[in-house]
């Protein structure tokens, strides 16, 4: 029915950042009414290509054809007018505004000079109805769970009449159920005639949902495949350029003494809302305990209380190596051997204005070795920083470089090195591989397992259920502030855990 073969065609796109070639003569074609997956390592150039398509960035050279016609965008609005809409990896929500405002901004229905809220609302409601979304339009976006925010973002794109919808790593924040919901939504969108470009690091999803797959590596296209004719291993090889182990072989570790006991922990957030209710669990030396749960079920508050970033309510207890640390300072907890990898690697885990060495010693700068009395000991600092750089393969020019010149994966390796190389007793690790490519994921997973093998207790909190299942000896599920432990969590399937994350009850044998 169409007079064109490709609804979107990007030809010979080139884009350079200083000396870095982000897109090297890329040609990218999408058939109408299909789901087209765009995959590749971190920094392969996926987002850049999409940013060029949405005119957030301008290409150095190259042409874009939409429905067979050459188009030239002058601003992001032009892209929208041509029916291109993108759901960004970092959601583009406006804190403190209502969902409705978030959706309509930039494309408000007008009534003379004013926003016609009535008409706007009617249009948004119409879309919600058509695509089966159920969203409270008057709620402030701050209060919404991530999955809902994602729906808001999708509605936003639909509201702008997009035909080509780009989803940048949409599944990394969702539970399995959430992922299924999203995939269903995508299928539904395609049925309605939309075209979807799907960016992800998760090859399973790629194979499940997409029709065609384009693979980028180092800014170049290394393969265009049909999903029916390929498999995970081939995709991984094309992405990384070598064979990648997608399944970690985790040896059974000997578990030792109890390192961490959390009992009856209750935590309120800054607004006074109870986020953790009577949580109790134990972590042993040499054991990896995974905690999974949908977003805002309390993991963040739990971790903050254990690490000491927030204070728990009086009646609960956190016992670390036999000592009650409920009211201890962060510094003391760290001194006792508690390491922490924060989920937000640039906001909390590192200081982007700081140098590599400044980032490498944080948390341990008061440890003997880094200091003599009150002075910093630069010999030791240099030695330690170089050790991280070597052992954790951090790609950098020198330890005086600013962190902001490192890529996300390298920052994460630096942080991991910092926390792992300190003879810890307990490691609290949040989402260690979020947004990181398969090569680096493999690296970090291996390191975590190594830590457990040498007898470190690991508490792993991840939104990626696959990660939790691959690494953990035991899996705790967090639901609505409570910890649910299944007596034999290793026998559970992804779907069963997913169900628990949503509040379902699974009996002992797994029904």
């Amino acid at each position: 029915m169409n007079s064109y073969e490709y609804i979107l065609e990007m030809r010979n796109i080139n884009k350079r950042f200083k000396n870095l070639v982000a897109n090297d003569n890329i040609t990218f074609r999408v058939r109408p009414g299909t789901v087209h997956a765009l995959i590749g390592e971190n920094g392969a150039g996926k987002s850049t290509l999409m940013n060029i398509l949405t005119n957030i960035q301008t290409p150095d050279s190259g042409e874009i054809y939409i429905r067979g016609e050459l188009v030239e965008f002058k601003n992001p609005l032009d892209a929208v007018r041509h029916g291109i809409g993108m759901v960004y990896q970092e959601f583009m929500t406006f804190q403190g505004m209502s969902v409705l405002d978030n959706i309509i901004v930039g494309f408000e229905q007008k009534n003379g000079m004013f926003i016609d809220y009535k008409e706007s609302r009617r249009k948004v409601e119409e879309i919600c109805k058509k695509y089966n979304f159920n969203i409270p339009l008057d709620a402030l976006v701050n209060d919404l769970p991530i999955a809902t925010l994602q729906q808001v973002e999708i509605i936003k794109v639909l509201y702008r009449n997009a035909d080509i919808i780009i989803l940048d790593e949409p599944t990394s924040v969702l539970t399995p159920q959430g992922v299924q919901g999203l995939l269903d939504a995508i299928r539904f969108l395609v049925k309605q005639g939309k075209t979807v470009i799907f960016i992800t690091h998760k090859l399973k999803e790629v194979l499940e949902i997409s029709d065609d797959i384009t693979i980028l590596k180092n800014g170049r296209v290394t393969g265009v495949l049909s999903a029916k004719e390929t498999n995970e291993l081939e995709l991984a090889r094309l992405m990384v350029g070598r064979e990648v182990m997608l399944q970690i072989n985790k040896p059974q570790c000997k578990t030792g003494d109890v390192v961490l006991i959390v009992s009856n922990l209750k935590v309120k957030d800054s607004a006074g809302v109870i986020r953790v209710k009577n949580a109790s669990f134990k972590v042993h030396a040499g054991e990896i305990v995974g905690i999974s749960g949908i977003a805002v079920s309390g993991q963040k508050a739990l971790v903050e209380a254990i690490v000491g970033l927030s204070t728990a309510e009086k009646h609960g207890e956190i016992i670390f190596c036999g000592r009650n640390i409920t009211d201890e300072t962060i510094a003391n907890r760290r001194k006792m051997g508690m390491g922490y990898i924060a989920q937000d690697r640039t906001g909390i885990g590192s200081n982007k204005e700081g140098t590599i060495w400044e980032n490498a010693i944080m948390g341990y700068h008061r440890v003997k070795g880094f200091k003599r009395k009150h002075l910093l000991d630069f010999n030791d600092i240099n030695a330690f920083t170089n050790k991280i750089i070597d052992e954790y393969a951090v790609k950098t020019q020198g330890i005086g470089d600013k962190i902001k010149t490192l890529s996300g994966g390298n920052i994460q390796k630096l942080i991991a090195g910092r926390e792992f190389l300190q003879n810890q007793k307990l490691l609290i690790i949040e989402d260690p591989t979020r947004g990181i490519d398969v090569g680096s994921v493999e690296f970090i997973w291996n390191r975590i397992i190594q830590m457990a093998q040498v007898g470190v207790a690991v508490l792993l909190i991840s939104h990626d259920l696959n990660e939790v299942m691959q690494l953990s000896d035991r899996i705790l599920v967090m639901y609505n502030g409570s910890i649910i432990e299944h007596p034999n969590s290793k026998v559970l399937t992804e779907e069963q855990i997913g169900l628990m994350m949503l509040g379902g009850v699974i009996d002992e044998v797994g029904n």
Partner: protein
Amino acid sequence: MMTMLGILFGSVTWSATFRLSTPIILTSVGGSFNKHTGVFCIAFECFMLSAAFFAAWGSYLTGSPYMGTLFAILAGLLLAAIFGMFVLNFKANPMIVSIAMNFGAWAVTTLLLTEIFGVRGYFHSPKIVNFSPIDIPVLREIPYINEVLNNQIILVYIAYISVVVGTIIMYKTPFGLRLRTIGINEIGAQTAGVNILKYKWIGLAIMGIMSGLGGAYLPLSGLSMFSENMSSGRGFLAFAAILVSKGNPVKAALISILFAYTNALTFTLTSYGIPSQLLQMFPFIAVIIVLMIGNLRNLSLTPVIEASE
């Protein structure tokens, strides 16, 4: 002797409040628009002082306060443009630019005073024509209201109208919605098709125009004069109002009124022999108290510092 109630609620205090708040309201409403685009600015002292000078000069040259105000607006716009050029185009640190401009404005207006009028300190001339008070017949019949609201110059009414108009623009129009998104999430706004740079410039322009109006009030409210440092810290008060109100025009106006009211009180209280130094501290202490009361719900006995925006 007046009763305390008479002083606190009397028409004398309130009509003075009404007038004194005018320059601060005008400036802070304008600055609110800029605030929402996420551009930090404390150069209001510069805008107001320069605008005051040009208002006086314009009125002197043309014999019309309206032309004087136009001069002031243009001066405000020009300075906002200079500020924008440094901050937006040259990526200069807005705080340094603001501070430098504040002091530069004092030096430049003083120099202009010497160069143009050949005087130092102040220039007074009947040729600087003031706005004349407007008599609104409807108000004339209502006793208290008449004394407070009636017979003010047009800028006073414009200030209060600007609060309403500003609020409507900010919260009811597409323009306002888009503007507000920039300060919250710049890239997000960009993806919504908002031309960030354009909106930032518009925000700056509104700030310039409104500070120009605020500055024009000073020489043309009946004084027929310009004097060195005439803005007397009102720019900083406007800045404080914007910061405290987080860019909400209504709240900014309320803070401005608080400043003006506490100041107006002192004019009566000074006749009771209270040392003027103590009275001068009034508005500032009031704003700290208001902030403390406003933040009571944040009160925590175990102090925790959150990174400020």
